[in-house]
């Protein structure tokens, strides 16, 4: 049972990392690691800021032929 759970946890980790879903958690963890009471963006605001950053510099995340 615990092996199944470990495999699933691992699969979930990779899916979230690869799709970028983990980005928000990482951002919060990063902010809190310096200051536990840091003001953080809401998920909605964070995701907006993330896509809008791509708008400003399209070379980030560019895919080629």
């Amino acid at each position: 049972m615990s092996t199944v759970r470990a495999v699933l946890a691992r699969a979930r980790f990779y899916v979230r990392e690869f799709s970028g879903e983990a980005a928000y958690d990482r951002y919060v963890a990063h902010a809190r690691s310096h200051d536990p009471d840091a003001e953080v963006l809401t998920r909605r605001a964070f995701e907006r800021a993330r896509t809008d950053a791509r708008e400003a510099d399209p070379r980030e995340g560019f895919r080629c032929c």
Partner: protein
Amino acid sequence: MPEPEATGTQRDTAGPGTSSGSPSPKSVAVWVLVGLVGALGWGVLALSRGEEISAAWLLAAALGSYAIGYRFYARFIAHRVLKVDATRATPAERLDNGVDFHPTDRRVLFGHHFAAVAGAGPLVGPVLAAQMGYLPGTIWIVAGVIFAGAVQDMVTLFFSTRRDGRSLGQMARDEIGPVGGAAALVAVFAIMIILLAVLALVIVNALAHSPWGVFSIGMTIPIAVFMGFYLRVLRPGRVTEVSLIGVALLLLAIVAGGWVAESSLAGTFTLEKETLVIWMVVYGFLASVLPVWMLLAPRDYLSTFMKIGTIALLAIGVVVAMPTLKMPAVTDFAARGDGPVFAGSMFPFVFITIACGALSGFHALVSSGTTPKMIQKETQVRMIGYGAMLTESFVAVMAIIAACIIEPGLFFAVNSPPGIIGTTVESASQAVTNFGFAISPEALTQAARDVEEASLLSRTGGAPTFALGMSEIFSSVVGGAGMKAFWYHFAIMFEALFILTTLDAGTRVGRFMLQDTLGNVHKSFRDVSWKPGVWFASAIVVGAWGYFLWVGIKDPLGGINQLFPLFGIANQLLAAVALAVCTTLLVKSGRLKWAWVTGVPLVWDATVTLTASYQKVFSEDVKVGFFAQRDKYQAGIDADKVLAPAKSMDDMHTIVTNATVDGVLCALFAVLIIVVLADALRTCVKAVRDPGSAKLSEVPWTESKIVAPAGLIATAEERAQLAAAAGRDSGGGQVKEPVG
């Protein structure tokens, strides 16, 4: 092939990630076996002539060679040449901000990097190159990736990592000089325009007169917009669930395309090439000025999911179906250089036609962009840079397999322009039979009916051929002949999806560069939120590729065979820039004796590209030389004669204009290469004469605190280090991956 000095005794600065001591007997046995499998594959490919062989041999040759190249050559480059340093902190560790700089699990980063480098390119070039048989293309794909392409990607990634993820253009300016840097910038812009035009042309050729295709691909726009709103408004950031919904809708759109094609709506979705070009240009402009979240970002998720999924399916399909290669190993076109798909002899044109999959300059832009900001350890450049490129090369090998398992007669009927094979199945059958590949008119009609298309003649550009091969493979595994049409349109959708994403993203990058340049004239242009500037620059970029796209469908000589060599030359030009930057950096950092690692591929690449541009500019053969074409048709105009395949005086003028534009561009590319090479050579000579003068803009050494394995699978030594580190900072430190 294995470098004698490369075997694993070297430790030097390597640290964790290198096994120490001499290799165990078990590992020796395994690698001898791998070598034998590869050698057997090549042996069968080399010795079989005139009989059909299984694609299994091609796979064995490729995979065996990749394994040897990765194990020995890439390791040698990492530890001996680059001296990757596991104790040195990467930009991701030093500048970690939790957003764009952050140490990312190596397997996740491998996925990101692979998804960013592999697109439609490796599916197009190898298909076109199949006109010379499967052997020349395969040899170049495999040898090219091991000695040039993967080396370029890995070395660029390494040097950019040492410079906080600086871009190729910036590195060219900093390390070679302002002239080389400016030439590199012009090269990037020019290649972007040609690339976008060629990719759009591939899609137009695949969708013309295909109501099924037009409907399914058209549906991707509302699907993407829905996903965009979902992520923006309904449930921000839930990428996985929305992607699953999106993929389900996408499959529905493919099935529904079949219904539409048989309904009374079919006429509405049956579009001429001219109409499609207009739609593409309008789409390209709107997509690039709309906010990223609305169309680009969701479409990107969709195309990445489809890309990884389909490539995995294809690999399984090829292994399960194990099809036979029907194309000869080497066709007569290889020696004669008069093939209908693209003109010119094997050298240099196979090496131009197959860029992505063997050596692609474009990858240097990714290797010097996002990836270096996320890599945990320098030691991982081998797995990510070299490994991802090997994987792309494998995709190219599958594309060449897909092109070579269909009837050669059908291959040439699909890939030759109407100027050569006419527009009826009878004329096509006749022309293809004259090439030496018999196919009956009935067989051509049946092949089109099998995939529910009105006609497959002159569907140039590679995508339809690849789709035919893929539907052949998949239908033999799942669903039988009845599923052929579905799989064909699935493959078209799969290519169209990321080509449309590239059109959008590429237009944005081109616009960004243009805005930056125009900013020197008028400051407001640099402000990316200044709408008039954005619209103006977008319109120019879209107009530029739209022009070449329009020319491509109107050219009586055939668009793909005129434009594709230009694209290949431009891409290889960018590779020359990247390899020149790498070589200069090796020399400047005192590694002259290892400069051949990127220097030899550079010389090869420059020779190929310059020979190709020389022939394209100066060849007397009207099939090859742009200016010879111009002269011939200009003489025709002067004599008031219409020369085939032109049908009218207008056609004659079109040919003259196109040939002139293409010829001038080719010459421009050649000049750019020479400028970059000369400037790089000047810098190298200076660095060798006076080593003290060489200034490297490398970020100083900082100690790394992250513990992370170098390769895909952690070695016993690395596991021990990971476990020790996990025990040390169990309070939640830098070790982010599940220890395994």
